[in-house]
């Protein structure tokens, strides 16, 4: 397949080039209604520097996959490794941008974004300077002293993104970060994300239910099946980089990607689970 984007990064030897690796991972949740199996024999390799999007019907294990990567959930069987070693506790080598608003309402935007630096013991003066630059980068310059409840939904997302990027984690996990936003704002934030990510070479795992968003942003899109989830389709996206977010959907090949992904999800939706 023709892939004009492949010149951007050079993948080294297979193992060393892996950022996150799932080996035969099973995950069973027990609840009052009984047990339900979310993942069974799940294998996944995320390469370093790759932008991977995960799509799938609701109720498939998308968020579970991210929580396993973050070490917030532990696999029932199999192993999940990050940067070459198995994840045993909460994984602080990643940044996790959740759907849920986790800004602390009692802190100003500046203090919220400074928390990861404070944890790392960075002196106050440097903290302030780095926070100021980061806020300007995400378009929140001038809102340092606002409290989260004084910001709009989009601005809170920006603040959360700033808080995740400021400590420079090599891997970013994003769980439908732009889900509840309106269409135009979504495109603006996607463009900002592309701009901020482009030069960094960070690995991104991006969960979304929006196929257009997945194709627009990602190097590779995987489709999960219904529970117990497996990878139904693994689609490399052949759209060159750097990409213009609002142009990507007119790129040659976009339509084919869309059709293939859509049918994979649709068939998944009609399928009866065992």
């Amino acid at each position: 397949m023709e892939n004009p984007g492949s010149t951007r990064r050079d993948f080294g030897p297979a193992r060393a080039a892996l950022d996150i690796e799932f080996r035969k991972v099973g995950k069973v949740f027990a609840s009052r209604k009984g047990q339900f199996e979310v993942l069974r024999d799940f294998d996944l390799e995320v390469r370093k520097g790759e932008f991977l999007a995960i799509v799938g019907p609701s109720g498939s294990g998308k968020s579970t996959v991210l929580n396993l990567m973050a070490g917030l959930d532990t696999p029932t069987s199999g192993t999940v490794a990050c940067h070459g070693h198995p994840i045993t506790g909460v994984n602080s080598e990643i940044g996790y941008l959740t759907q849920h608003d986790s800004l602390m309402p009692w802190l100003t935007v500046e203090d919220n974004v400074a928390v990861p630096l404070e944890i790392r013991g960075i002196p106050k003066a440097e903290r302030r300077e780095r926070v100021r630059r980061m806020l300007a980068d995400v378009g929140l310059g001038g809102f340092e002293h606002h409290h989260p409840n004084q910001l709009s939904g989009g601005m809170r997302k920006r603040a959360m993104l700033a808080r995740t990027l400021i400590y420079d984690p090599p891997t970013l996990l994003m769980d439908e970060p732009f889900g509840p936003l309106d269409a135009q704002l979504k495109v603006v934030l996607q463009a900002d994300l592309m701009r901020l990510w482009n030069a960094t070479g960070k690995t991104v795992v991006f969960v979304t239910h929006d196929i257009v968003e997945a194709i627009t942003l990602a190097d590779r899109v995987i489709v999960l099946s219904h529970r117990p989830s497996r990878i139904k389709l693994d689609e490399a996206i052949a759209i060159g980089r750097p990409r213009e977010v609002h142009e990507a959907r007119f790129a040659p090949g976009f339509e084919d990607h869309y059709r293939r992904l859509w049918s994979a999800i649709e068939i998944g939706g009609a399928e009866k689970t065992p």
Partner: protein
Amino acid sequence: MSDGPTTPPSAFAGKLRRLDAVWFYRALFLVAFLGTWQLASGPLLDPFWVSSPSAIGATLVKWTRSGALQYHLLVTFKETATGFVFGAAFGILAAFVIGSSDILRRTVDPFLTAVYGVPKVALAPLFIMWFGIGLAPKIVLAAVSVFFLVLFSTIGGIAQADRKMVDALRIMGAGRFTVHRRVTFPSALPWVFSGLKLGLPYGFVGAVAAEMMASNAGIGFLTQNAAGQLDTAGVFAALFALMVVTAALNEGLGRLEHRIFRWR
């Protein structure tokens, strides 16, 4: 783009007018209440039992002139304040120790609830036996009363801390202490405050109840003493003085709360 700050509409002036009106109605209510009492006392009700605002006022003036009121109020205030500070501090501390472990919380919960259910006033004789008739038993009773209210309220607040916020912080690399300082404590703080506000009057109840049983000073002694002389005006005057102090302290706590929670 809708990506702009949401500034709340400034209705400050209107709010101020509403507030003025409320104060006016409050004053009106007070005047009507005291006026009715004053007029009813004598023609309708026997002043021996119900006294009257003017008689109570006269007693208050008399006691203030002689310095008795200040002296007794100060004694009660000292007992309550000391008990309050100790009770609140231990309550918050214990809540964090208990609240930091789910197993521990569930283990001690039935015992705490059982002890909490005992009317604290019933402990007064015990404390008087243990600590004599000085300030100590009153302080302890006030402290115990405040302790449980603050403890339960704070434990409730800690349980309310947003799990997702805690997870977000741990992923950023935060240890237990940072999680407490940045998430658990601030999110429990409103509950701590409601515990403190609830606890304050109970602190006074504890101190005054212990005074009524065995003491020679304090508002509890003053009411008991006035009642012993069948001086209804004296009883009301002592209670009134206590009411004013409690209300003032509660107002102070409310202001402090408002300052701390400006982010809301």
